[in-house]
């Protein structure tokens, strides 16, 4: 049966749709009836007949790397649950999707909730969890209802509850709504939030909640997209799945393109098989009329910005080669080698009409608003970065303000409780690194302001 899509929503020929197969599909709806008609929950039956260890091994073989941002291998993470554990194990689906530029989980939970639920049941079986939570951001009110309805449907069909399909495996899934705080996407912040507290991220180690997580018990946190991939790994087998994409970067992933392109949108591609040129020119229709591409943020606003006219040295020693920005394949490793990261797959594009000081200012406002305030470098630093970038954007800064801003950023990253510190500092560091001249060009020596106190101070500081 051939699949047709809604008008104007047809996938681009470069796409390879697994996860998004049913998104924007004609005649599709989020009901279990529709999902079952398509062979839904067959992979659950298959997985329940397997030993949990074998399921984990399939996922390990598949090479699946987490799609939430860090790109950590999922199968390996699952293996971190202490073997001598006697506490209950929890599975949490991270549906906080709040990294600016990212909009993929949205379509899964609104249009294809059963794919996620099937993936969660298989994953829970693999890691031995009998309670699972979907932590969904508050700004998806409709999806929270859709998911709760889907869970009820799955219960009625004996895919959830006690003794699932006679296998002896029990599982309940609950939906837990957040309350509009970005930091709840960080997995330990999420866990604190789920425990009913302020979402202050926990001190590491332990580096993974798989050791100590929700209610101090082993907990696996995975992104929505990652959990959906598990269904396809079951269907294809790890050995087949790993052939998709490129070595060490297997499978498909969804790229979300927004900003200054003719046709923004979401594209599910084989990891590493598409370059920036193909993505932005072929799939997104190129720049808007009369414009040229200037800069791209490749993996959500926390990743480092890249200039479109840059050339990168990739590889070491004899293997080193020059790679033009446009030829960068969109995988985890090459983007890391180019000094940025694949992150959450949110590609934000800026053309030559954009002032970088304005872009920077928008980003610093985001991080100043969203810092949880728990540790000093991040709480104070994010606010200072906002204030200094306010001055640069507003044309009231001095050239040294750009240096000050850079110094603040470097005093945040690596010195904080959670990776939000890097997330807020990296964009600033990269922006100054790549566009220093443009930023300095908007400042003026004339803006130097001497307060009364400073004049008094200088009396004592001046050389005798």
């Amino acid at each position, binding site marked *: 049966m051939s699949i047709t899509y809604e008008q104007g929503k047809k996938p681009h020929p470069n796409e390879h749709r697994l996860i998004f197969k049913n998104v924007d599909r004609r005649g599709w709806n989020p009901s279990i009836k529709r999902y079952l008609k398509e062979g839904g929950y067959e992979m659950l039956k298959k997985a329940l007949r397997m030993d949990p260890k074998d399921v984990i091994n399939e996922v390990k073989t598949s090479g699946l790397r987490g799609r939430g941002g860090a790109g950590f291998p999922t199968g390996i993470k699952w293996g971190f649950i202490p073997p001598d554990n006697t506490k209950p194990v929890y599975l949490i689906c991270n549906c906080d*999707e*709040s*990294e*600016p*530029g*990212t*909009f993929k*989980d*949205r379509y899964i939970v609104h249009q294809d909730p059963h794919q996620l639920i099937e993936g969660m049941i298989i994953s829970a079986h693999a890691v031995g969890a009998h*309670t699972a939570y979907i932590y969904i*951001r*508050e*700004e*998806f*009110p*409709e999806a929270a209802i859709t998911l709760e309805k889907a869970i009820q449907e799955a219960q009625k069909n004996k895919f959830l509850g006690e003794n699932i399909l006679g296998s002896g495996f029990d599982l309940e899934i*609950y939906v*837990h*709504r*957040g*309350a*509009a*705080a*970005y930091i709840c996407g960080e997995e330990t912040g999420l866990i604190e*939030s*789920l*425990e*009913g*507290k*302020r*979402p202050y991220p926990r001190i590491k180690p332990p580096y993974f909640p798989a050791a100590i997580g929700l*209610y101090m018990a082993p907990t696996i946190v995975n992104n929505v997209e990652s959990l959906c991939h598990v269904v396809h790994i079951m269907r294809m087998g790890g050995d087949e799945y790993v052939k998709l994409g490129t070595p060490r970067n297997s499978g498909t992933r969804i790229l*979300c*393109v*927004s*900003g*200054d392109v003719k046709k*923004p*949108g*979401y594209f599910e591609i084989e990891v590493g098989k598409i370059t920036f040129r193909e993505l932005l020119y072929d799939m997104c229709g190129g720049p808007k009329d009369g414009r040229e591409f200037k800069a791209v*943020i490749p993996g959500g*606003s926390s990743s480092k910005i890249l200039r479109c006219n840059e050339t990168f040295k990739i590889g070491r020693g004899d293997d080193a080669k020059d790679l033009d920005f446009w030829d960068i394949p969109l995988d985890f490793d090459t983007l890391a080698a180019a000094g940025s990261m694949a992150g959450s797959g*949110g590609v*934000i594009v*800026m053309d030559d009409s*954009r002032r970088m000081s304005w*872009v920077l200012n*928008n*980003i610093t*406002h*985001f991080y100043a*608003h*969203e810092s*949880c305030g728990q540790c000093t470098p991040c709480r104070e630093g994010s606010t200072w970065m906002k204030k200094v970038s306010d001055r640069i954007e507003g044309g009231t800064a001095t050239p040294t303000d750009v240096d000050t801003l850079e110094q603040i950023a470097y005093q945040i990253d690596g010195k904080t409780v959670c990776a939000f510190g890097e997330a807020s500092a990296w964009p600033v560091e990269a922006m100054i690194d790549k566009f220093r001249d443009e930023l300095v060009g908007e400042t003026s020596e004339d803006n130097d302001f001497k307060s009364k106190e400073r004049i008094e101070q200088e009396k004592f500081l001046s050389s005798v």
Partner: protein
Amino acid sequence: MSSNPEIPEVPVDQNADDSKQPAPPAGGINTPLPRPVDRTAVEYLPPALSVLEQNIHSAKTPGEKFFPSFAVTEGLEEKANERIAQYPDDQKRSAVLPLLHEVQHRFGYISPESIDWVSDKLDIEPIKVVEVVTFYPGFRQKAPGKLHIRVCRTLSCAMGGSYELMDKLCEIARIDRNASDPHKDPIAVSPCGNYSVEFAECLASCGTAPVCLVNDDFHEDVTFDKAKELLNSYQNA
């Protein structure tokens, strides 16, 4: 303090005219704490609420008329118990967010009374509810308008014109966003109480920027010239 003129006066001087004092509400976090009398403060500073009182205070807004005042109904109890049952028996505190959502959904905002109710329901100190309410931008402590509009202000939407959309919405609804400090009080309500606006951070639909939420409805591609149309579509709601 000066940024929030709506905070009512609270007597500081024990000898002041008793008839002006609001009756202290019974029990829980609403009971004003006894404070030492500071005569210099009475003379030179405006009377103020304690920090704790400020944190639970609900300012009056023109939107109030659209929401019932907090009351524990059977429906609320039932829903709350259902939510509490989602968590292990010894982890009731996990239900703080779900319970607060139930309250805000029914009554528009989190009032001091509802904080007491949630803390009673979960057997935790009221301060543990307050710390959650005051942290999360998703909870508000005063009534919004009948239509609460959250416009995404993050990068892709800003490039798509979401600040212009916000300006247009404010113009139509006669809202002055500069009247209060957006950090302390991000929600601005129109004088008629029909509308309120607030900036939101990335709503995860950057490809269809600019986007906004009107109550629980999501709208995409709302360029500023569609602002009027957007509000009109709710005319009969």
